[in-house]
């Protein structure tokens, strides 16, 4: 277990280094940060002086070296726009994004699983066929269309839920602003998390269905029937656990997609999270913030995949992390 975590830590460092190089390499291509920082009236000489002060005229490697030295001490640069450490700006927005993603994941787990199971055990049932049709539509419709439609239907036409912002939040432990504990906060969470969930749901419904159908054909399921076990027991104890093994793996990979989709969702719902911040940072050519965001997301990705591997080890007895040290 410890070896496993240590190896993951080393892996994570490599991932971070590669991400930071890539994000650094694309910096010049985003636009000119100085253009955004100062007005039209500033002369080219003054601009150049500012560029020198910011170190933007240095070579790529000396810029990167300066950044890397700071990064080791937890300093990912200072945001041009906020004039604060980029990492602090991002971590400040992290709770909003994590809560959004968390609710979306909960919705996916509790909706996709029963839907997939139903579609697998009663493939000819009308509801199952409907599910398959809806999920293939869901796969092909982009998330921003779903989100905009939801805003139109639920907040404009039906006036059931607010369409932007986080609503009322409460502070926990003095460092986490949470919308999960107020009615208003939850109401605000509803539409964004739902549309984020809808974006990823079809893949999971289809995956669970396909896996479950395969598992139901296996010998051990037939043996379970021959023992006279009840249908719910066979479906939910014998089949579902085996079905979930590949689903967990895919789930870990999809965590990355989820983060990418938060950018879209947060932009549409004006959700004050990391994704929204990232879009702003790109528009403002706030390059330190862009790099810092990419690195933080890389970190989240590594952490989720480590967690997923740990969960996989718990569900699948043939993989014992402790003994293999993988």
């Amino acid at each position: 277990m410890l070896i496993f975590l240590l190896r993951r830590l080393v892996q994570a460092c490599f991932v971070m280094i590669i991400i930071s190089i890539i994000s650094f390499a694309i910096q010049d291509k985003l636009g000119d940060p100085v253009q955004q920082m100062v007005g039209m009236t500033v002369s080219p000489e003054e601009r150049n002086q500012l560029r020198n002060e910011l170190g933007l005229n240095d070579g790529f490697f000396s810029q990167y070296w300066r950044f890397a030295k700071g990064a080791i001490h937890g300093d990912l640069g200072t945001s041009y726009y906020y004039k604060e450490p980029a990492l602090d700006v991002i971590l400040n927005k992290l709770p909003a994004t994590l809560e959004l993603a968390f609710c979306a994941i909960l919705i996916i787990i509790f909706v996709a699983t029963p839907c997939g199971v139903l579609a697998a055990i009663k493939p000819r049932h009308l509801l199952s066929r409907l599910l398959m049709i809806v999920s293939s539509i869901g796969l092909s419709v982009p998330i921003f269309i779903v989100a905009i439609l939801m805003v139109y239907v639920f907040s404009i036409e039906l006036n059931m839920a607010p369409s932007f912002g986080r609503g009322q939040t409460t502070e926990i432990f003095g460092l986490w602003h949470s919308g999960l504990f107020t009615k208003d906060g939850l109401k605000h969470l509803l539409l964004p998390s739902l549309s984020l969930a809808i974006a990823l749901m079809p893949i999971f419904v289809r995956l669970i269905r396909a896996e479950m159908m395969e598992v139901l054909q296996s010998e051990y399921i037939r043996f379970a029937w021959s023992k006279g076990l009840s249908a719910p027991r066979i479906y939910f104890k014998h089949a579902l656990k085996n079905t979930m093994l590949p689903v967990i793996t895919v789930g870990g990979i999809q965590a990355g997609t989820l983060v990418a989709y938060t950018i879209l969702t947060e932009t549409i719902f004006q959700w004050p999270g990391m994704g929204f911040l990232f879009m702003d940072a790109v528009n403002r050519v706030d390059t330190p913030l862009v790099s810092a965001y990419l690195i933080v997301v890389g970190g989240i990705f590594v952490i989720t995949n480590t967690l997923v591997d740990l969960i996989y080890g718990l569900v699948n007895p043939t993989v014992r992390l402790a003994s293999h040290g993988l």
Partner: protein
Amino acid sequence: MNLLSVSNLYVNFHTKERELAALIDVSFTLNRGERIAIVGESGAGKSVLGFSIVNLIGKPGYIESGSIKLENKELTKMSLRQLQEVRGKRIAMIFQDPMMTLNPVLTIGDQLVETIRSHTKISYKDARNIAIEKLHHVQIASPEKRFNQYPHELSGGMRQRVIIASVLLLNPDIIIADEPTTALDVTIQAEILQLLLTICRDNGVALVLISHDLGVVSKVAERTLVMYAGHVVEEGPTLEIINDPQHPYTQGLLNALPQMTLPGQRLNQIQGSMPSLAERPSGCAFHPRCPYATQKCRQEQPNFIYSGVSSVACFLVEDMLNEFAEQDQETH
């Protein structure tokens, strides 16, 4: 009364084009404590017969007509709930490949205890005790340790023992064993077979052994059914069938045993192969491979007739019996 009686059983497989017959007019009986074997090549319908007894034929197979009676209860007419009470408790099954039969993500103990607890109201602790006792019974060393292990931690032979223990949990009347030793090592095969035999004999459990190996069958079963292309072609006491096979197919099977050939010589074989369900030959299904086939064999389906000790479905035997009968009449 017979413990199990299967009569005129027809099983079909549903396909888009047409219905394919997998079992045709199969009848047999099984008495309490009796051990019978069902033999034949792959595709003869042995496994389908075994699975249809507890109505577990995988889709698209289904029982078209006929009756399967456990004492006086008709199994083919039972609801799923009623069947669940029969399965495991009165009729238990052992499958071919022990590597595939146990659920890989549940412990041995879980899989044993759930079987007991889904049939009887009993505490977990009591169920655990029964399970451990049965594991002990099938000669598994340190059953308490095995109880908490997962299937992948056990060898193939050990897993088949666990499966045998699992079918014994509720003291069933009948065990259906579908090729229980085929997937195992030869040395383990003999042990498992011996175990199965002892257990059935000691507990008075009736056994339906499905096998393609006449050597295995001769050691275990009192009576044997030979199947070919969905038909029972010969039935009788195992000794009789092995020493004096009547049907040309049974003769061919016995001839194909390696023991029947001298070292260094080519093994005997029955020419051709088992027809698929879709292309069943006319008349006697065996005629294209039969060295004695006549015009009649190609056109008509032979009846199942009793020849003194065993029953055979073959015109050759029928004609011979008729001749004997005529000679008998002439002499009297």
